[in-house]
Protein backbone atom coordinates (compact mmCIF):
# COMPACT_ATOMS: atom_id res chain seq x y z
CA UNK A 1 0.00 0.00 0.00
CA UNK A 2 1.40 3.46 -0.80
CA UNK A 3 2.72 5.43 2.14
CA UNK A 4 0.18 8.21 1.63
CA UNK A 5 -2.62 5.72 2.20
CA UNK A 6 -1.01 4.43 5.37
CA UNK A 7 -0.74 8.03 6.56
CA UNK A 8 -4.39 8.64 5.71
CA UNK A 9 -5.64 5.58 7.57
CA UNK A 10 -3.46 6.09 10.63
CA UNK A 11 -4.40 9.78 10.73
CA UNK A 12 -8.08 8.82 10.54
CA UNK A 13 -7.57 6.39 13.41
CA UNK A 14 -6.04 9.14 15.50
CA UNK A 15 -8.67 11.65 14.43
CA UNK A 16 -11.56 9.35 15.27
CA UNK A 17 -10.27 8.53 18.72
CA UNK A 18 -9.49 12.19 19.43
CA UNK A 19 -12.97 13.18 18.26
CA UNK A 20 -14.51 10.74 20.72
CA UNK A 21 -12.27 11.97 23.53
CA UNK A 22 -13.24 15.57 22.91
CA UNK A 23 -16.98 14.95 22.53
CA UNK A 24 -19.64 15.92 24.98
CA UNK A 25 -22.44 15.14 22.53
CA UNK A 26 -23.29 11.53 21.76
CA UNK A 27 -23.50 12.14 18.04
CA UNK A 28 -19.93 13.37 17.72
CA UNK A 29 -18.77 10.52 19.93
CA UNK A 30 -20.54 8.09 17.61
CA UNK A 31 -18.89 9.77 14.62
CA UNK A 32 -15.48 9.28 16.20
CA UNK A 33 -16.18 5.59 16.84
CA UNK A 34 -17.33 5.04 13.26
CA UNK A 35 -14.28 6.87 11.94
CA UNK A 36 -11.90 4.58 13.84
CA UNK A 37 -13.82 1.49 12.71
CA UNK A 38 -13.76 2.47 9.05
CA UNK A 39 -10.13 3.60 9.15
CA UNK A 40 -8.83 0.30 10.44
CA UNK A 41 -10.72 -1.85 7.93
CA UNK A 42 -8.29 -1.32 5.00
CA UNK A 43 -5.37 -1.92 7.33
CA UNK A 44 -6.89 -5.26 8.32
CA UNK A 45 -7.65 -6.33 4.76
CA UNK A 46 -4.42 -5.11 3.16
CA UNK A 47 -2.94 -8.60 2.78
CA UNK A 48 -5.76 -9.88 0.52
CA UNK A 49 -5.77 -13.27 2.15
CA UNK A 50 -9.17 -14.94 2.70
CA UNK A 51 -8.52 -15.08 6.46
CA UNK A 52 -7.74 -11.35 6.52
CA UNK A 53 -10.95 -10.64 4.61
CA UNK A 54 -12.83 -12.86 7.03
CA UNK A 55 -11.37 -11.00 10.01
CA UNK A 56 -12.21 -7.65 8.43
CA UNK A 57 -15.78 -8.66 7.69
CA UNK A 58 -16.35 -10.02 11.19
CA UNK A 59 -14.84 -6.90 12.73
CA UNK A 60 -17.02 -4.62 10.60
CA UNK A 61 -20.20 -6.53 11.41
CA UNK A 62 -19.50 -6.56 15.14
CA UNK A 63 -18.41 -2.96 15.40
CA UNK A 64 -21.22 -1.67 13.21
CA UNK A 65 -23.76 -3.58 15.30
CA UNK A 66 -22.25 -2.22 18.48
CA UNK A 67 -22.22 1.34 17.23
CA UNK A 68 -25.77 0.95 15.99
CA UNK A 69 -26.86 -0.27 19.42
CA UNK A 70 -25.04 2.65 21.02
CA UNK A 71 -26.77 5.11 18.73
CA UNK A 72 -30.11 3.53 19.53
CA UNK A 73 -29.37 3.82 23.25
CA UNK A 74 -28.39 7.46 22.93
CA UNK A 75 -31.46 8.28 20.85
CA UNK A 76 -33.62 6.55 23.46
CA UNK A 77 -31.98 8.59 26.19
CA UNK A 78 -32.34 11.76 24.12
CA UNK A 79 -36.04 11.08 23.60
CA UNK A 80 -36.79 10.21 27.22
CA UNK A 81 -34.40 12.46 29.14
CA UNK A 82 -34.27 15.26 26.53
CA UNK A 83 -30.50 15.30 26.73
CA UNK A 84 -27.76 14.42 24.26
CA UNK A 85 -24.94 15.06 26.67
CA UNK A 86 -22.74 12.04 27.42
CA UNK A 87 -22.54 12.86 31.14
CA UNK A 88 -26.30 13.13 31.50
CA UNK A 89 -27.28 9.63 30.50
CA UNK A 90 -29.74 8.60 33.19
CA UNK A 91 -32.35 6.33 31.61
CA UNK A 92 -31.65 2.79 32.90
CA UNK A 93 -32.66 1.05 29.67
CA UNK A 94 -30.50 3.37 27.62
CA UNK A 95 -27.62 2.90 30.04
CA UNK A 96 -27.83 -0.90 29.91
CA UNK A 97 -28.03 -0.88 26.13
CA UNK A 98 -25.13 1.57 25.87
CA UNK A 99 -23.07 -0.52 28.24
CA UNK A 100 -23.76 -3.68 26.23
CA UNK A 101 -22.80 -1.85 23.05
CA UNK A 102 -19.55 -0.61 24.54
CA UNK A 103 -18.81 -4.05 25.96
CA UNK A 104 -19.28 -5.48 22.46
CA UNK A 105 -16.93 -2.87 21.04
CA UNK A 106 -14.30 -3.56 23.67
CA UNK A 107 -14.58 -7.33 23.50
CA UNK A 108 -15.71 -7.78 27.11
CA UNK A 109 -17.37 -11.04 28.10
CA UNK A 110 -19.93 -12.24 27.25
CA UNK A 111 -19.45 -10.31 23.99
CA UNK A 112 -15.85 -11.35 23.49
CA UNK A 113 -16.09 -14.31 21.12
CA UNK A 114 -15.37 -12.25 17.99
CA UNK A 115 -12.03 -10.99 19.25
CA UNK A 116 -9.86 -14.16 19.02
CA UNK A 117 -11.15 -15.00 15.54
CA UNK A 118 -10.53 -11.46 14.28
CA UNK A 119 -7.07 -11.26 15.84
CA UNK A 120 -6.10 -14.59 14.33
CA UNK A 121 -6.69 -13.27 10.84
CA UNK A 122 -4.57 -10.14 11.25
CA UNK A 123 -0.88 -9.45 11.07
CA UNK A 124 0.85 -8.61 14.34
CA UNK A 125 1.00 -4.83 13.87
CA UNK A 126 -2.69 -4.51 13.05
CA UNK A 127 -3.43 -6.85 15.95
CA UNK A 128 -1.51 -4.51 18.20
CA UNK A 129 -3.55 -1.53 17.02
CA UNK A 130 -6.76 -3.49 17.54
CA UNK A 131 -5.76 -4.51 21.08
CA UNK A 132 -4.58 -1.11 22.18
CA UNK A 133 -5.65 1.93 20.22
CA UNK A 134 -9.14 0.67 19.39
CA UNK A 135 -9.91 0.24 23.10
CA UNK A 136 -9.31 3.87 23.99
CA UNK A 137 -12.38 5.55 22.53
CA UNK A 138 -15.01 3.06 23.80
CA UNK A 139 -13.31 2.97 27.20
CA UNK A 140 -13.46 6.77 27.39
CA UNK A 141 -17.21 6.63 26.82
CA UNK A 142 -17.58 3.81 29.33
CA UNK A 143 -15.76 5.89 31.93
CA UNK A 144 -18.08 8.81 31.37
CA UNK A 145 -21.26 6.80 31.86
CA UNK A 146 -19.91 4.41 34.49
CA UNK A 147 -21.08 6.45 37.47
CA UNK A 148 -24.72 6.18 36.39
CA UNK A 149 -24.53 2.47 35.59
CA UNK A 150 -25.80 -0.22 37.93
CA UNK A 151 -22.72 -1.38 39.88
CA UNK A 152 -23.77 -5.03 39.83
CA UNK A 153 -23.71 -5.07 36.05
CA UNK A 154 -20.19 -3.67 35.93
CA UNK A 155 -19.03 -6.23 38.48
CA UNK A 156 -20.59 -9.06 36.50
CA UNK A 157 -18.99 -7.76 33.28
CA UNK A 158 -15.58 -7.57 34.92
CA UNK A 159 -15.79 -10.96 36.62
CA UNK A 160 -17.11 -12.77 33.57
CA UNK A 161 -14.46 -11.17 31.34
CA UNK A 162 -11.63 -12.24 33.62
CA UNK A 163 -13.02 -15.75 34.09
CA UNK A 164 -14.11 -16.55 30.55
CA UNK A 165 -10.95 -15.08 29.06
CA UNK A 166 -8.81 -17.15 31.40
CA UNK A 167 -10.75 -20.30 30.50
CA UNK A 168 -10.68 -19.50 26.79
CA UNK A 169 -6.96 -18.78 26.64
CA UNK A 170 -6.06 -21.91 28.55
CA UNK A 171 -5.19 -24.21 25.66
CA UNK A 172 -4.43 -21.89 22.83
CA UNK A 173 -1.39 -22.52 20.72
CA UNK A 174 -1.76 -19.44 18.55
CA UNK A 175 -0.16 -16.37 20.08
CA UNK A 176 -2.61 -13.89 18.62
CA UNK A 177 -5.54 -15.71 20.19
CA UNK A 178 -3.70 -15.77 23.52
CA UNK A 179 -3.24 -12.00 23.29
CA UNK A 180 -6.93 -11.58 22.42
CA UNK A 181 -8.00 -13.46 25.54
CA UNK A 182 -5.41 -11.48 27.50
CA UNK A 183 -7.05 -8.29 26.25
CA UNK A 184 -10.47 -9.40 27.46
CA UNK A 185 -9.13 -10.43 30.87
CA UNK A 186 -7.26 -7.18 31.47
CA UNK A 187 -10.25 -5.12 30.42
CA UNK A 188 -12.26 -7.13 32.93
CA UNK A 189 -9.92 -5.95 35.67
CA UNK A 190 -10.35 -2.34 34.49
CA UNK A 191 -14.11 -2.53 34.29
CA UNK A 192 -14.64 -4.10 37.71
CA UNK A 193 -12.92 -1.15 39.40
CA UNK A 194 -14.44 1.47 37.12
CA UNK A 195 -17.39 2.13 39.40
CA UNK A 196 -15.18 2.89 42.42
CA UNK A 197 -12.14 4.52 40.91
CA UNK A 198 -12.20 5.58 37.24
CA UNK A 199 -8.63 6.81 37.58
CA UNK A 200 -7.46 3.39 38.66
CA UNK A 201 -9.33 1.81 35.75
CA UNK A 202 -7.60 4.20 33.38
CA UNK A 203 -4.25 3.36 34.92
CA UNK A 204 -4.96 -0.36 34.52
CA UNK A 205 -5.79 0.21 30.87
CA UNK A 206 -2.63 2.24 30.36
CA UNK A 207 -0.40 -0.41 31.91
CA UNK A 208 -2.14 -3.12 29.87
CA UNK A 209 -1.50 -1.13 26.68
CA UNK A 210 2.20 -0.86 27.51
CA UNK A 211 2.54 -4.55 28.25
CA UNK A 212 0.66 -5.57 25.12
CA UNK A 213 2.77 -3.26 23.01
CA UNK A 214 5.95 -4.84 24.35
CA UNK A 215 4.61 -8.34 23.76
CA UNK A 216 3.36 -7.70 20.24
CA UNK A 217 6.50 -5.86 19.12
CA UNK A 218 8.68 -8.69 20.39
CA UNK A 219 6.52 -11.24 18.58
CA UNK A 220 6.75 -9.13 15.43
CA UNK A 221 10.52 -9.01 15.66
CA UNK A 222 10.64 -12.77 16.05
CA UNK A 223 7.99 -13.26 13.30
CA UNK A 224 6.30 -15.72 15.63
CA UNK A 225 2.61 -16.41 15.63
CA UNK A 226 2.58 -19.84 17.29
CA UNK A 227 3.99 -21.24 20.50
CA UNK A 228 6.09 -23.71 18.54
CA UNK A 229 7.74 -20.96 16.49
CA UNK A 230 8.24 -18.98 19.66
CA UNK A 231 10.00 -21.88 21.31
CA UNK A 232 12.63 -21.97 18.59
CA UNK A 233 13.10 -18.19 18.36
CA UNK A 234 15.63 -18.01 21.17
CA UNK A 235 18.51 -18.42 18.76
CA UNK A 236 17.47 -15.34 16.80
CA UNK A 237 17.75 -12.98 19.74
CA UNK A 238 18.32 -14.52 23.17
CA UNK A 239 18.09 -11.14 24.90
CA UNK A 240 14.65 -10.40 23.49
CA UNK A 241 13.38 -13.80 24.52
CA UNK A 242 14.62 -13.32 28.09
CA UNK A 243 12.77 -10.00 28.12
CA UNK A 244 9.75 -11.77 26.64
CA UNK A 245 9.58 -14.16 29.57
CA UNK A 246 9.45 -11.22 31.93
CA UNK A 247 6.88 -9.43 29.74
CA UNK A 248 4.65 -12.52 29.83
CA UNK A 249 4.97 -12.78 33.60
CA UNK A 250 4.21 -9.07 33.85
CA UNK A 251 1.05 -9.72 31.79
CA UNK A 252 0.24 -12.44 34.31
CA UNK A 253 0.57 -9.92 37.12
CA UNK A 254 3.62 -11.24 38.90
CA UNK A 255 5.75 -8.94 41.02
CA UNK A 256 8.21 -7.24 40.68
CA UNK A 257 7.02 -6.37 37.20
CA UNK A 258 4.73 -3.48 36.37
CA UNK A 259 1.77 -5.75 35.68
CA UNK A 260 1.52 -6.50 39.39
CA UNK A 261 0.46 -2.88 39.91
CA UNK A 262 -2.94 -3.55 38.36
CA UNK A 263 -3.64 -6.61 40.46
CA UNK A 264 -2.42 -5.01 43.66
CA UNK A 265 -4.26 -1.72 43.41
CA UNK A 266 -7.50 -3.18 42.06
CA UNK A 267 -7.62 -5.82 44.79
CA UNK A 268 -6.84 -3.19 47.40
CA UNK A 269 -9.68 -0.99 46.17
CA UNK A 270 -12.10 -3.91 45.99
CA UNK A 271 -11.33 -4.93 49.57
CA UNK A 272 -11.72 -1.32 50.72
CA UNK A 273 -15.20 -1.40 49.16
CA UNK A 274 -15.98 -4.65 51.07
CA UNK A 275 -16.25 -6.63 47.82
CA UNK A 276 -14.47 -9.69 49.13
CA UNK A 277 -16.23 -12.30 46.99
CA UNK A 278 -15.65 -10.57 43.63
CA UNK A 279 -12.04 -9.91 44.67
CA UNK A 280 -11.52 -13.60 45.45
CA UNK A 281 -13.18 -14.72 42.24
CA UNK A 282 -11.25 -12.36 40.01
CA UNK A 283 -7.91 -13.26 41.56
CA UNK A 284 -8.68 -16.94 41.06
CA UNK A 285 -9.40 -16.22 37.41
CA UNK A 286 -6.10 -14.36 37.22
CA UNK A 287 -4.37 -17.51 38.47
CA UNK A 288 -5.62 -19.41 35.44
CA UNK A 289 -4.31 -16.65 33.17
CA UNK A 290 -1.00 -16.69 35.02
CA UNK A 291 -0.80 -20.43 34.42
CA UNK A 292 -0.82 -20.11 30.65
CA UNK A 293 1.49 -17.09 30.65
CA UNK A 294 3.97 -18.99 32.81
CA UNK A 295 3.61 -22.05 30.57
CA UNK A 296 4.31 -19.87 27.54
CA UNK A 297 7.40 -18.46 29.28
CA UNK A 298 8.54 -21.97 30.08
CA UNK A 299 8.23 -23.09 26.50
CA UNK A 300 9.82 -19.91 25.18
CA UNK A 301 13.30 -20.22 26.57
CA UNK A 302 13.51 -22.40 29.61
CA UNK A 303 13.03 -25.59 27.60
CA UNK A 304 15.13 -26.43 24.57
CA UNK A 305 12.90 -27.92 21.92
CA UNK A 306 13.96 -30.16 19.05
CA UNK A 307 15.13 -27.98 16.20
CA UNK A 308 16.66 -28.49 12.81
CA UNK A 309 19.98 -26.91 13.68
CA UNK A 310 22.61 -27.95 16.18
CA UNK A 311 24.17 -24.48 16.20
CA UNK A 312 23.32 -22.59 19.37
CA UNK A 313 22.84 -19.19 17.79
CA UNK A 314 22.25 -18.04 14.27
CA UNK A 315 24.77 -16.02 12.36
CA UNK A 316 22.99 -12.73 12.58
CA UNK A 317 23.37 -9.65 10.47
CA UNK A 318 23.01 -6.31 12.20
CA UNK A 319 19.34 -5.69 12.62
CA UNK A 320 18.67 -2.30 11.09
CA UNK A 321 14.99 -2.43 11.86
CA UNK A 322 15.27 -1.94 15.62
CA UNK A 323 13.02 0.86 16.74
CA UNK A 324 13.12 2.75 20.00
CA UNK A 325 9.54 1.88 20.89
CA UNK A 326 10.30 -1.72 21.86
CA UNK A 327 12.94 -0.90 24.50
CA UNK A 328 10.73 1.85 25.91
CA UNK A 329 7.71 -0.45 26.13
CA UNK A 330 9.80 -3.28 27.59
CA UNK A 331 11.34 -1.01 30.22
CA UNK A 332 7.93 0.36 31.13
CA UNK A 333 6.52 -3.17 31.34
CA UNK A 334 9.23 -4.48 33.62
CA UNK A 335 10.56 -1.71 35.83
CA UNK A 336 7.77 0.70 36.73
CA UNK A 337 6.47 -1.03 39.87
CA UNK A 338 8.55 1.24 42.16
CA UNK A 339 6.69 4.18 40.63
CA UNK A 340 3.39 2.80 41.91
CA UNK A 341 2.87 5.56 44.52
CA UNK A 342 3.22 8.17 41.80
CA UNK A 343 0.69 6.42 39.53
CA UNK A 344 -1.67 6.02 42.47
CA UNK A 345 -1.42 9.73 43.21
CA UNK A 346 -2.19 10.48 39.58
CA UNK A 347 -5.33 8.34 39.73
CA UNK A 348 -6.51 10.23 42.79
CA UNK A 349 -5.87 13.41 40.85
CA UNK A 350 -8.22 12.15 38.11
CA UNK A 351 -10.88 11.18 40.66
Amino acid at each position, binding site marked *: MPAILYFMFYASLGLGTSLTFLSSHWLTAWMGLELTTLAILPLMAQH*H*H*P*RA*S*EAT*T*KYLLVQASATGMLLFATILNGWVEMSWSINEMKNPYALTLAMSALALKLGLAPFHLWLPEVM*QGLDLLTGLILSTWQKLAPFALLMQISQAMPPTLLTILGLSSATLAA*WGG*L*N*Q*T*QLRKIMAYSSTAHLGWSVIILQFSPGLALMALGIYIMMTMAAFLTMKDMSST*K*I*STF*STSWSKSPEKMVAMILILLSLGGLPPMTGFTIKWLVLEELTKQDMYTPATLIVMAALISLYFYA*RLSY*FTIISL*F*PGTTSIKTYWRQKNIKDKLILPIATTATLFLLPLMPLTLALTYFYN
Partner: protein
Amino acid sequence: MAVSRVTLQTPAGVCGLFRRQLLQPSLSHPTILSTRSIYGEYKRPGQPPDKRWPWEKIRFDFSKGVEGIQKHFGLLKDEFVGRLRGPEGRPLLDHMLEQTLVQWEFRGPESLDQWVVSSDKEIGGQSEAYLKLGKNNTTCMLYGTLCSVPPRDGETRYSGYCTLRSKQTLLSFDRKRHFDWSTFNTLYIRFRGDGRPWMINISAEMYFSHNKNDIYSYFLYTRGGPYWQEVKIPFSKFFLSSRGRIQDDQHCLWLDKVCWTNSSAKSHSRKEYHFENIANLRM
Protein backbone atom coordinates in the same frame (compact mmCIF):
# COMPACT_ATOMS: atom_id res chain seq x y z
CA MET B 1 -35.29 -15.23 -20.75
CA ALA B 2 -34.63 -14.51 -24.41
CA VAL B 3 -33.82 -10.89 -25.18
CA SER B 4 -33.18 -9.40 -28.60
CA ARG B 5 -29.96 -7.61 -29.38
CA VAL B 6 -31.89 -4.46 -30.33
CA THR B 7 -33.36 -4.28 -26.82
CA LEU B 8 -29.92 -4.35 -25.22
CA GLN B 9 -28.49 -1.66 -27.48
CA THR B 10 -30.63 1.17 -26.11
CA PRO B 11 -30.75 2.38 -22.48
CA ALA B 12 -34.53 2.42 -22.62
CA GLY B 13 -34.53 -1.19 -23.66
CA VAL B 14 -32.24 -2.20 -20.79
CA CYS B 15 -34.34 -0.24 -18.29
CA GLY B 16 -37.46 -1.85 -19.64
CA LEU B 17 -35.86 -5.23 -19.23
CA PHE B 18 -35.12 -4.57 -15.56
CA ARG B 19 -38.59 -3.13 -15.02
CA ARG B 20 -40.09 -6.29 -16.46
CA GLN B 21 -37.94 -8.40 -14.15
CA LEU B 22 -38.99 -6.38 -11.10
CA LEU B 23 -42.67 -5.99 -11.86
CA GLN B 24 -43.22 -9.54 -12.94
CA PRO B 25 -41.41 -11.75 -10.43
CA SER B 26 -41.58 -15.44 -10.92
CA LEU B 27 -44.08 -16.73 -8.38
CA SER B 28 -44.47 -20.17 -9.86
CA HIS B 29 -42.08 -21.75 -7.39
CA PRO B 30 -40.39 -20.33 -4.29
CA THR B 31 -36.82 -20.83 -5.48
CA ILE B 32 -35.88 -17.26 -4.55
CA LEU B 33 -36.51 -17.92 -0.87
CA SER B 34 -35.35 -21.51 -0.71
CA THR B 35 -32.20 -22.49 1.10
CA ARG B 36 -30.79 -23.97 -2.09
CA SER B 37 -30.86 -20.66 -3.94
CA ILE B 38 -29.34 -18.83 -1.00
CA TYR B 39 -26.52 -21.25 -0.30
CA GLY B 40 -26.17 -22.82 -3.73
CA GLU B 41 -26.48 -26.48 -2.77
CA TYR B 42 -25.28 -29.04 -5.20
CA LYS B 43 -27.83 -30.15 -7.74
CA ARG B 44 -27.14 -33.38 -9.55
CA PRO B 45 -27.06 -32.64 -13.28
CA GLY B 46 -30.18 -33.78 -15.06
CA GLN B 47 -32.22 -33.98 -11.87
CA PRO B 48 -35.02 -31.53 -11.13
CA PRO B 49 -34.20 -28.99 -8.40
CA ASP B 50 -35.38 -29.72 -4.86
CA LYS B 51 -38.05 -27.08 -4.33
CA ARG B 52 -39.20 -28.15 -0.89
CA TRP B 53 -39.31 -25.60 1.91
CA PRO B 54 -36.84 -26.24 4.77
CA TRP B 55 -39.58 -27.33 7.17
CA GLU B 56 -40.74 -29.92 4.69
CA LYS B 57 -37.39 -31.69 4.95
CA ILE B 58 -37.65 -32.21 8.72
CA ARG B 59 -38.56 -35.66 9.98
CA PHE B 60 -39.45 -35.43 13.66
CA ASP B 61 -38.68 -38.43 15.85
CA PHE B 62 -38.78 -38.22 19.64
CA SER B 63 -36.48 -41.16 20.36
CA LYS B 64 -33.87 -39.83 17.99
CA GLY B 65 -34.13 -36.50 19.72
CA VAL B 66 -33.37 -38.08 23.10
CA GLU B 67 -30.41 -39.97 21.62
CA GLY B 68 -29.17 -36.77 20.05
CA ILE B 69 -29.33 -34.89 23.33
CA GLN B 70 -27.39 -37.64 25.10
CA LYS B 71 -24.81 -37.78 22.35
CA HIS B 72 -24.26 -34.04 22.13
CA PHE B 73 -24.06 -33.44 25.86
CA GLY B 74 -21.67 -36.36 26.14
CA LEU B 75 -19.45 -34.78 23.51
CA LEU B 76 -19.67 -31.43 25.32
CA LYS B 77 -18.59 -33.06 28.57
CA ASP B 78 -15.64 -34.66 26.78
CA GLU B 79 -14.66 -31.27 25.38
CA PHE B 80 -14.66 -29.72 28.84
CA VAL B 81 -12.57 -32.54 30.26
CA GLY B 82 -10.24 -32.45 27.26
CA ARG B 83 -9.76 -28.73 27.78
CA LEU B 84 -8.29 -29.40 31.19
CA ARG B 85 -5.82 -31.78 29.60
CA GLY B 86 -4.55 -29.51 26.84
CA PRO B 87 -5.15 -28.33 23.28
CA GLU B 88 -7.24 -30.80 21.27
CA GLY B 89 -7.46 -32.97 24.38
CA ARG B 90 -3.73 -33.79 24.44
CA PRO B 91 -1.11 -32.36 26.83
CA LEU B 92 0.60 -29.25 25.51
CA LEU B 93 3.99 -30.89 25.92
CA ASP B 94 2.94 -33.56 23.43
CA HIS B 95 1.83 -30.81 21.06
CA MET B 96 5.16 -29.04 21.39
CA LEU B 97 7.45 -32.06 21.23
CA GLU B 98 5.80 -34.18 18.56
CA GLN B 99 7.55 -34.37 15.23
CA THR B 100 4.96 -36.61 13.64
CA LEU B 101 1.25 -36.90 14.04
CA VAL B 102 -0.49 -39.93 12.59
CA GLN B 103 -3.77 -38.38 11.58
CA TRP B 104 -5.33 -41.34 9.82
CA GLU B 105 -4.37 -44.99 9.78
CA PHE B 106 -6.27 -48.14 8.91
CA ARG B 107 -6.41 -50.60 11.75
CA GLY B 108 -9.84 -52.15 11.54
CA PRO B 109 -13.31 -51.85 10.03
CA GLU B 110 -14.12 -48.80 12.16
CA SER B 111 -11.33 -46.82 10.48
CA LEU B 112 -13.15 -47.14 7.15
CA ASP B 113 -16.06 -45.20 8.65
CA GLN B 114 -13.89 -42.09 8.72
CA TRP B 115 -13.79 -42.02 4.92
CA VAL B 116 -16.27 -41.40 2.16
CA VAL B 117 -15.81 -42.97 -1.25
CA SER B 118 -17.51 -41.47 -4.26
CA SER B 119 -17.31 -41.55 -8.00
CA ASP B 120 -19.12 -40.06 -10.93
CA LYS B 121 -21.89 -42.60 -10.40
CA GLU B 122 -23.51 -39.88 -8.28
CA ILE B 123 -23.96 -37.73 -11.35
CA GLY B 124 -25.04 -40.60 -13.56
CA GLY B 125 -21.65 -41.87 -14.71
CA GLN B 126 -20.43 -45.45 -14.89
CA SER B 127 -17.34 -45.38 -12.69
CA GLU B 128 -17.26 -47.51 -9.57
CA ALA B 129 -15.31 -47.04 -6.38
CA TYR B 130 -15.06 -49.32 -3.36
CA LEU B 131 -13.07 -49.27 -0.16
CA LYS B 132 -12.01 -52.28 1.82
CA LEU B 133 -9.36 -53.21 4.31
CA GLY B 134 -6.19 -54.72 2.98
CA LYS B 135 -4.21 -57.65 4.29
CA ASN B 136 -3.86 -57.99 8.05
CA ASN B 137 -6.28 -55.09 8.48
CA THR B 138 -3.38 -52.64 8.41
CA THR B 139 -4.03 -50.97 5.07
CA CYS B 140 -7.01 -49.94 3.03
CA MET B 141 -7.61 -50.63 -0.62
CA LEU B 142 -9.47 -48.22 -2.85
CA TYR B 143 -10.39 -50.01 -6.05
CA GLY B 144 -12.92 -50.00 -8.82
CA THR B 145 -13.40 -49.02 -12.42
CA LEU B 146 -13.11 -45.64 -14.03
CA CYS B 147 -15.21 -44.90 -17.09
CA SER B 148 -14.95 -41.60 -18.92
CA VAL B 149 -18.27 -41.94 -20.75
CA PRO B 150 -20.26 -38.90 -19.61
CA PRO B 151 -23.81 -39.36 -18.35
CA ARG B 152 -26.52 -38.56 -20.83
CA ASP B 153 -28.15 -35.68 -18.98
CA GLY B 154 -27.48 -32.90 -21.45
CA GLU B 155 -25.32 -30.99 -18.95
CA THR B 156 -22.22 -33.01 -18.12
CA ARG B 157 -19.48 -33.07 -20.70
CA TYR B 158 -16.66 -34.88 -18.88
CA SER B 159 -16.68 -37.78 -16.53
CA GLY B 160 -14.58 -40.59 -15.12
CA TYR B 161 -13.37 -39.82 -11.61
CA CYS B 162 -13.28 -41.36 -8.17
CA THR B 163 -12.38 -39.89 -4.82
CA LEU B 164 -11.63 -40.96 -1.27
CA ARG B 165 -12.39 -38.18 1.18
CA SER B 166 -12.12 -37.95 4.94
CA LYS B 167 -15.35 -37.23 6.73
CA GLN B 168 -15.83 -33.89 8.41
CA THR B 169 -15.55 -34.61 12.12
CA LEU B 170 -18.03 -32.87 14.34
CA LEU B 171 -17.94 -31.57 17.88
CA SER B 172 -20.95 -31.29 20.14
CA PHE B 173 -24.07 -29.83 18.57
CA ASP B 174 -22.79 -30.49 15.06
CA ARG B 175 -20.04 -27.90 15.15
CA LYS B 176 -17.21 -28.58 12.72
CA ARG B 177 -14.02 -29.87 14.20
CA HIS B 178 -10.92 -28.50 12.53
CA PHE B 179 -7.46 -30.00 12.53
CA ASP B 180 -4.67 -27.78 13.77
CA TRP B 181 -1.69 -28.76 11.66
CA SER B 182 0.13 -25.46 12.19
CA THR B 183 3.09 -27.12 13.92
CA PHE B 184 3.71 -29.33 10.87
CA ASN B 185 5.01 -28.43 7.45
CA THR B 186 4.81 -31.67 5.46
CA LEU B 187 2.19 -34.21 4.54
CA TYR B 188 3.57 -37.73 4.53
CA ILE B 189 1.72 -40.57 2.84
CA ARG B 190 2.74 -44.19 2.55
CA PHE B 191 0.95 -45.91 -0.29
CA ARG B 192 1.15 -48.38 -3.12
CA GLY B 193 -0.55 -47.37 -6.33
CA ASP B 194 -1.02 -48.68 -9.84
CA GLY B 195 1.06 -46.14 -11.75
CA ARG B 196 -1.80 -43.68 -12.16
CA PRO B 197 -1.34 -40.04 -11.07
CA TRP B 198 -3.58 -38.98 -8.20
CA MET B 199 -4.36 -35.60 -6.78
CA ILE B 200 -4.21 -34.87 -3.05
CA ASN B 201 -6.61 -32.16 -1.94
CA ILE B 202 -6.87 -30.36 1.37
CA SER B 203 -9.70 -28.06 2.34
CA ALA B 204 -9.45 -25.41 5.05
CA GLU B 205 -12.35 -23.71 6.75
CA MET B 206 -13.66 -20.83 4.69
CA TYR B 207 -15.93 -18.04 5.83
CA PHE B 208 -17.38 -16.63 2.64
CA SER B 209 -19.70 -18.58 0.40
CA HIS B 210 -17.62 -17.74 -2.67
CA ASN B 211 -14.69 -19.57 -1.05
CA LYS B 212 -16.62 -22.73 -0.21
CA ASN B 213 -15.26 -24.61 -3.22
CA ASP B 214 -11.66 -23.57 -2.56
CA ILE B 215 -9.35 -26.56 -2.38
CA TYR B 216 -5.57 -26.80 -2.08
CA SER B 217 -4.21 -29.50 -4.33
CA TYR B 218 -1.03 -31.27 -5.25
CA PHE B 219 -0.17 -34.25 -7.41
CA LEU B 220 0.76 -37.70 -6.31
CA TYR B 221 2.51 -39.89 -8.87
CA THR B 222 2.31 -43.57 -8.10
CA ARG B 223 4.86 -46.04 -9.33
CA GLY B 224 2.65 -49.06 -9.61
CA GLY B 225 5.23 -51.50 -8.36
CA PRO B 226 4.88 -54.11 -5.61
CA TYR B 227 6.87 -51.91 -3.26
CA TRP B 228 5.44 -49.32 -0.95
CA GLN B 229 6.05 -45.71 -1.79
CA GLU B 230 6.51 -42.87 0.71
CA VAL B 231 5.89 -39.32 -0.32
CA LYS B 232 6.45 -36.12 1.62
CA ILE B 233 4.64 -33.11 0.26
CA PRO B 234 5.37 -29.75 1.92
CA PHE B 235 2.21 -27.83 2.60
CA SER B 236 3.75 -24.84 0.81
CA LYS B 237 3.54 -26.80 -2.45
CA PHE B 238 -0.22 -27.01 -2.42
CA PHE B 239 -1.85 -24.65 -4.89
CA LEU B 240 -5.26 -23.07 -4.62
CA SER B 241 -8.04 -24.05 -6.96
CA SER B 242 -11.77 -23.47 -6.95
CA ARG B 243 -14.17 -25.87 -8.68
CA GLY B 244 -11.27 -27.32 -10.60
CA ARG B 245 -9.86 -24.01 -11.80
CA ILE B 246 -6.45 -22.95 -10.58
CA GLN B 247 -6.67 -19.45 -9.17
CA ASP B 248 -4.46 -16.60 -10.34
CA ASP B 249 -4.31 -15.10 -6.86
CA GLN B 250 -2.58 -17.84 -4.92
CA HIS B 251 -2.56 -17.91 -1.12
CA CYS B 252 -0.70 -20.20 1.19
CA LEU B 253 -2.68 -22.83 3.05
CA TRP B 254 -3.48 -21.77 6.63
CA LEU B 255 -3.05 -24.91 8.66
CA ASP B 256 -4.87 -23.98 11.84
CA LYS B 257 -8.35 -24.87 10.51
CA VAL B 258 -8.12 -27.83 8.17
CA CYS B 259 -11.44 -29.53 7.46
CA TRP B 260 -10.75 -32.58 5.32
CA THR B 261 -8.39 -34.12 2.87
CA ASN B 262 -9.00 -36.37 -0.08
CA SER B 263 -7.29 -38.15 -2.94
CA SER B 264 -8.89 -38.34 -6.34
CA ALA B 265 -8.13 -39.82 -9.70
CA LYS B 266 -9.44 -39.40 -13.19
CA SER B 267 -9.24 -41.49 -16.29
CA HIS B 268 -9.71 -40.79 -19.97
CA SER B 269 -10.92 -44.29 -20.76
CA ARG B 270 -12.48 -47.25 -19.06
CA LYS B 271 -9.87 -48.77 -16.78
CA GLU B 272 -9.63 -50.61 -13.53
CA TYR B 273 -7.60 -49.06 -10.76
CA HIS B 274 -6.44 -49.76 -7.27
CA PHE B 275 -4.78 -47.55 -4.69
CA GLU B 276 -3.61 -48.99 -1.42
CA ASN B 277 -2.55 -46.56 1.23
CA ILE B 278 -1.78 -45.74 4.83
CA ALA B 279 -1.90 -42.03 5.57
CA ASN B 280 0.49 -40.24 7.93
CA LEU B 281 1.22 -36.62 8.83
CA ARG B 282 4.80 -35.73 9.54
CA MET B 283 6.82 -32.58 10.24
